[in-house]
């Protein structure tokens, strides 16, 4: 019952975000601030994780490739496929559910418990529009973050594979280009786009509708992380089923 209520409330929230718009000049400033907080500030961790995950995927593949009949270029191929299809869009999004998600929940939640949201409403402002829309717009840049993760991940794979002596440079590059299906990239970006909407709105929901004080803000962030991850994983499954099979 509770879940049904939450789901209903979530979709009503999505509708209410667009009910009454904030002044464009104000909205613009807010969007720039969110791009900074949500996108720019996440680049460091995204680059770091992508690089090392790319490296690890390569080493794992190389170590499991003992059969001399299988060409070494498969290492490059595997790195590309796993990074583009899953590691960049999905794995990074789970990390972002922790970073961006808990930031969103705790910042909106704090505004709720300190009555800053009431203060916005008293001034006749649609607080959902004011708080959530700039986050959604900023997260439209998320596929860009994911493409950086892909590049860096593949770079990490190349470094680990070639410098670690597992595969020759030209073999790796050959594998990287083997059987490339452009739709896989489209699939990855469609996923990233949907994930971006989830990352912006689900944590906002948990912050906006929370009750209590500072302690509950912490709890709300944790709950928000769990739910955002669960929804990302389910969405990933559904999208993969729909787009790839």
């Amino acid at each position: 019952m509770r879940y049904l209520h939450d789901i209903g409330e979530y979709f009503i929230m999505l509708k209410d975000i667009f009910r009454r718009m904030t002044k464009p000049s104000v909205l613009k400033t807010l969007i720039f601030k969110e791009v900074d907080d949500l996108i720019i500030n996440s680049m460091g961790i995204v680059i770091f994780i992508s690089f090392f995950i790319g490296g690890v995927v390569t080493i794992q593949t190389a170590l499991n490739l003992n059969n001399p009949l299988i060409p070494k270029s498969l290492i490059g191929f595997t790195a590309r496929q796993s990074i583009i299809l899953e590691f960049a869009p999905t794995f990074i999004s789970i990390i972002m559910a922790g970073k961006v998600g808990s930031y969103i929940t705790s910042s909106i939640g704090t505004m709720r418990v300190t009555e800053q949201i009431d203060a916005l409403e008293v001034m006749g402002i649609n607080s959902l529009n004011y708080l959530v829309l700039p986050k959604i717009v900023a997260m439209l840049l998320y596929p860009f973050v994911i493409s950086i993760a892909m590049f860096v991940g593949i770079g990490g794979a190349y470094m680990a594979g070639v410098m670690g002596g597992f595969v020759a440079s030209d073999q790796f590059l050959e594998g990287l280009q083997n059987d490339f299906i452009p739709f896989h990239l489209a699939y990855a970006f469609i996923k990233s786009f949907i994930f971006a909407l989830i990352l912006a709105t689900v944590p906002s929901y948990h912050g906006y509708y929370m009750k209590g004080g500072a302690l509950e803000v912490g709890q709300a962030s944790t709950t928000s992380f769990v739910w955002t991850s669960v929804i990302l994983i389910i969405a990933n499954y559904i999208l993969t089923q729909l787009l790839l099979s």
Partner: protein
Amino acid sequence: MIKVNDLHKSFSGEEILKGIDTEFIQGKTNLIIGQSGAGKTVFLKCLLGLILPTDGTIEYDGKAYSTLNKEQQRELRKKMGMVFQGSALFDSMSVAENVMFPLKMFTKQRKEQRMERVREVLDRVDLLKVDNKFPSEISGGMQKRVAIARAIVNKPQYLFCDEPNSGLDPKTAILIDNLIHEITKENNITTVINTHDMNSVLEIGENIVFLKDGRLEWQGDKSIIYKTDNESLTSFVYSSDLFQKVRKAQLQGL
């Protein structure tokens, strides 16, 4: 003037406000008093239109909120200022930006015009020198004054304050009370203050509404409150030994 008729409010079946009839007078500091949990904040948020009443009407200078259309409600909102219990300043904005915010949202004034008005009200609450600081960098009393400045910057007709001196030391509390009182007089505003602070009641209580168990238990001003024989009121207002002595002195005409 704000007129409240038979106001009811329930949350999931539990009735918090059980039919309140009262009036808040223009140019006076109207006080809503009552114990914690009496429903003061709920009442105030109904007056602000933040909470929709379950039943009853609220009239602002003769116009009932529920009969206004969306645009008229928005116009009415512009005439309201609110000082929240915890100040509710936007922590991502400086003091001056906080005070400027309602002007930015509500008016088409140019930047210089807005700046001028902001400086005017900051000067009024004696905070010109901290205009570039952030809320976390100033004291609780200063935050309250910023909240007052933000509430009055748009020249409201109605000013609402939820426990404006809770969490402040007694001296600062009196300063805040007096500030709100003076601003009310200067601008002839209808001010409604929630409080459970007896100093405020006895200092600035010009029209006191005592809530108990969601009902209006007593209404009057500070000059007659000590004469009341309403038991819940006297035990609430004169709860400490000190205040009982004050009451004795008042009754003896001292």
